[in-house]
Each structure stands twice: as structure tokens, then as C-alpha cells.
């Protein structure tokens, strides 16, 4: 929800306060939690980019992780195999994801819902196969490790600050895009593609552009992942990971902007912290999911929003 005029200042102050707290984190948090925060930011950025297509665009984006992986691989390969300036490598890698999103989107947007999702899943799996098999270039299933990243941004706190800055900028950009006429029309398409078409919207073109935008920011997240972890590997584009991102969106609230970020925070910390105590953390996750579906079908933030602002919001399914 865009802040309304009166309280804009309030929101701005709150946002800045959160930012400052986050920026101070490495000073007082143990190293591991700084790392974990960076991981949450990256995963959250990734989930938010997925949600641009999923929650705001209504596209069943079943294999979003491909763009994540391609971003990570592009930057790793450029850093390892070429002598290009490092800044250039970081900057161009997300465009590789965007180009892939354009190509895959071009084929997929002709279909809708489950068919779209499945076609994307198959195409994504083809990309995965190529990465998985092309040993001489991508390192095959072993992946690429020890990517040479300048120590300024590869140390725990350095990578945290880099991640924080890049993800805040990216989130800001996505927020602007979603609240622009483009984003408004995108949401209309989500609600009702046929109707959108009859008011003069070129639905396919709109969806294609959305794919490119979502793919681009997924690529950014991929680049950040390499900065923090120093590795790229085929797991980054596996369909199970895609499903995990999807769950984050649904968990946090897929019709809200910050929902995916919250979902990512919940899942990443659950995975890390519950994983310490039990191998069966997936069961804990499953139970949380079931409770969520029964009691909070709009996700956590969606529920809070409905609770505070819009008791009249309709959950009627749009076919």
C-alpha cells in the first residue's frame, strides 16, 4: 500500500529508523547473525522479485530460481574467466538474467496459469541441465567456488553493507515500478487478463516486460549471493529452490510488497535455527504452512493488513 500524503513523513522516518538499525547491526551483532541478515536480505530480495510476477502479475512463476542462478553464474564466470573490471562484472550480470527472462518469457507468456508455470519449469530445467552438464565452462555439478571478490565487499560485514545498499535500492526500484501506471495495470492484469485486454492493454507485452523486470532483480539477488557466499552451484537453479521462494511469498503475503521479505526472514531463520536442534525442521515448516493455509490464506502481512485496514477485502477467487 502506498503511504498516503498525510503520513508520508511518518513512514519515511520509520523507514529511515529501520535502515539505521540495520546499518548498525554489524557493530553489535555476532558475526554469524550479520551473515544471516545478509542472507535474509538476499533471499528476501529474490522472493520480492518473484512476487513482482507472482503476486502482482498473477503469473505462476514456478521456476524463478533460474534467473537467480544465471545471475550468480554470470558474475562468477566473468570474475573467474575474464579480466573485465570488477564493477562491470557486477553491473552486467543481472542483465544476463534479464535477457534469459526475455527469451523464456517470450515463449511462456502465450500461456496462462498452470500451463505457464509448467512450461517455465521445463524451459528452466533445460537451462539447469546445460549448467549442470557443461563441466568445462560452468564447473558442472561441483559448481564454482572461491570466486575472486575484492575483500572490501567479501568480508562478513563488508558483504552485509554491500547487500544492504544494493537490496534497499532494488526494493525501492521495485516499489516505484509497482506503484507506477505500469504496476497498476499489472495488478489489473493479475485480477482479470481478459478485461484488461478489452480496455486496450497489450497483456502479453505487459507480462513480458514484467518477466524481464522480475528476472533482472532475481539476477541482482544472484550477484549478491555470490558476494556473500563466494560460490555458485547448480542447486541455485533447482526447482525445489524455486518452490521455496514461492512459499516465502505465500507465507509472508503475496499481495503485499513486504510480505515476501518477511516470508524469507521466517523461512531462512527457521531453517538455520531449528536446523540446529533437529533434522526434522521441514516438518516444523510443514506444520506452519498448514496452519497458515487454514487460518491466514492471505499470508502474514496480508492478514495484518486485512485486520487493520480493510476488513472488507474480498477473497473471491478470480477465474
Amino acid at each position, binding site marked *: 500500500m502506498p503511504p498516503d500524503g498525510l503520513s508520508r513523513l511518518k513512514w519515511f522516518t520509520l523507514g529511515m529508523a529501520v535502515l539505521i538499525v540495520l546499518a548498525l547491526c554489524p557493530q553489535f551483532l555476532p558475526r554469524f547473525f550479520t551473515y544471516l541478515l545478509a542472507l535474509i536480505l538476499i533471499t528476501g530480495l529474490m522472493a520480492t522479485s518473484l512476487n513482482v510476477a507472482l503476486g502482482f502479475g498473477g503469473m505462476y512463476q514456478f521456476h524463478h530460481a533460474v534467473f537467480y542462478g544465471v545471475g550468480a553464474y554470470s558474475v562468477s564466470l566473468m570474475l573467474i574467466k575474464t579480466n573485465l573490471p570488477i564493477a562491470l562484472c557486477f553491473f552486467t550480470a543481472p542483465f544476463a538474467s534479464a535477457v534469459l527472462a526475455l527469451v523464456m518469457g517470450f515463449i511462456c507468456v502465450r500461456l496462462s*496459469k*498452470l500451463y505457464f508455470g509448467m512450461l517455465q519449469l521445463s524451459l528452466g*530445467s*533445460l537451462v539447469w541441465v546445460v549448467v549442470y552438464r557443461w563441466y568445462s565452462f560452468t564447473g558442472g555439478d561441483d559448481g564454482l567456488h572461491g570466486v575472486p571478490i575484492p575483500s572490501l565487499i567479501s568480508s562478513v560485514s563488508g558483504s552485509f553493507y554491500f547487500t544492504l545498499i544494493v537490496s534497499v535500492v532494488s526494493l525501492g526500484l521495485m516499489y516505484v515500478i509497482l506503484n507506477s501506471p505500469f504496476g497498476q495495470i499489472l495488478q489489473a492484469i493479475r485480477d482479470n487478463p481478459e478485461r484488461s485486454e478489452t480496455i486496450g492493454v497489450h497483456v502479453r507485452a505487459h507480462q513480458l516486460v514484467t518477466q524481464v523486470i522480475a528476472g533482472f532483480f532475481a539476477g541482482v539477488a544472484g550477484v549478491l549471493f555470490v558476494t556473500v557466499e563466494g560460490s555458485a552451484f547448480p542447486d541455485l537453479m533447482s526447482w525445489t529452490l524455486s518452490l521455496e521462494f514461492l512459499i516465502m511469498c*505465500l507465507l509472508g503475503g503475496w499481495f503485499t510488497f513486504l510480505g515476501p521479505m518477511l516470508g524469507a526472514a521466517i523461512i531462512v531463520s527457521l531453517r538455520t535455527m531449528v536446523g540446529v536442534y533437529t533434522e*526434522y525442521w521441514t516438518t516444523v515448516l510443514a506444520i506452519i*504452512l498448514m496452519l497458515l493455509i487454514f487460518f491466514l490464506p492471505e499470508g502474514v502481512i496480508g492478514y495484518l493488513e486485512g485486520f487493520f485496514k480493510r476488513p472488507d477485502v474480498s477473497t473471491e477467487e478470480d477465474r
Partner: protein
Amino acid sequence: MDFSTTITFNGLIQQFIVGLSRTTILFIVSSGLSLVLGVLRIPNVAHGSLYMLGAFLCYSVATLFGNSPIGFWFAILLAPIGVAIISLATERGLFCHLYDREHLMLLLFTFALMLIFHDAVKLIWGSEYRSLTPPVIFQGSLPILGMPFPKYNLFLLSIGPIVAVGLWFLTQRTKIGKIARAAAVDRDMVGAVGINVSWVFASVFVIGCFLAGLGGALVAPTQNITQGMDHTIIMEAFLIVIIGGLGNVWGALLGALIFGLTDSMGIMILPQFSIVFPYAAVVIVLIFRPKGLLRATW
């Protein structure tokens, strides 16, 4: 590396038959998925887990009977029934409250089920590999066109048509099949006519899951029974259902044929890239027939 492969006609035929026996399992599993998807509109990700559960149950029952032939037949019969009972419990306890939710939510829900089944299998059966011996009459191989062909695969080949005919009978000739088909097209209308849709849905769900369990039980003697069986099969089953046409049982057969045969032929013709074939087949089908090969029910 230097090598040359000669592809003989006999080899091709052989490969074709082998592909068919693989198709059988794929068909049984994906037809169940398709049924659930078509009538209940549930993209059941946990279908693969039920398949895995079928295999594990089959193993346990057979071991209980000391791996005797009778035990094997019992296992083949009882394992899917066990799976059906579990699915009935989940349907009545959980799913039946969720039918009006969005597809994505149902997908998520079945994913949660998949996680639970996965951990449950790990808890109950542990992490060791299991292996089941087929009865003596199915051990070894028969020569077909001068090439040894496993007897068990022949048995599988004969099961496929039986299941297909059974499904055809069920959907076309029985009352419940007719109601289910009508419900797939317009569920409100069926409810309005005064039929208890809820129970129709439950029985369709159970039948679909029974098929998953049957697939798992049948496949148990040919491979090692282990966690992770669910991952491979569910992906393939979904792709098959999609290229066949959502909810269309015959589509599932066609899709399974395409999938099984491109796979086994790919192994023969371009063995180094066989991993690519099924995905490529799906992409090609969807580019030319975006809604699948046969008519989808939704």
C-alpha cells in the same frame, strides 16, 4: 573419446518395448495425478510421496511374509490399499475444507504434506536403502529378438492395459465416474442436482492416490526403495499430465508414452544427451499445443 555406435533394427524394437514397460509405471502414477487434478483441481505435489509410501509399504508387507511369493502378491495388493486409507484420512481431515481455495494455496498445502510424508518415511523406515526381490517366476529374463528381456518388465507391460481399461470403465461406465466427470466440468451444477459432491470428490481423490500407491508397489522390485523416490517421479508425472492435457486420463497415457519412449529412444540414439530429451519433448509439445495434446477438462 572415439567411439561408434551401430543401431540395429532389433535393438530399436527392444528399446521400444523397454520404453513401454517404463511407460506403464509413469502412466499409472500420472493418471492418478491427472484424475485428482481434473476433478478436484488439486495440483497434488504429495502424489510422489504417496508413490514412495506405496513402495515402502510394499517392501514392509513383503518382508513381513518372509519374501514368499504369496507375500509379494499381498504386498502388491495391500500397499496401494494402505496408501488409499492414508489418503482418505487426509482428504476427510484436511482437504475437504479447502476445495474453494486458490490453486496456488492447494499446491502449497500438498507441498506441506509432501514434507511431512518425507520426514515420516525417514522416521519409520530409516535412511538405509531397501531392495525387494520379485517372486521366482518373475526373476531372470526371457529372450526377445535375441536380447534378454527382464520377466518382471513383461509383467509390468501386462498391468498397464489392465489399469487403462479399468480407468476407462470407471470413468465412462460407472455412476461415480459419470458424476465425477460432470463435477469436473461444473461442480455447482452437480451439487445442485442433489448429489453429495464431497463424497464423490473423496472417492476420486482416494482412487487417484491408490494409483500412486500401486505405481510405487509395482516399481518396488525393480529399484532401490529410498527417500527421494518422490522427487523424480512427481516432476515427471506433472510434465506428463501437462503435455497430455490437464485432467484427461487418456492424455496421461499419451503423455506417458511420449515421455517413456523419447527417454528410452534417446538413450539408444544419443546416449550422452539423454537427460535432455524429456524436457525438450515437453517444451516442443507446449509450444505447438499450448493446452496439451488432448482436451483438458479445465
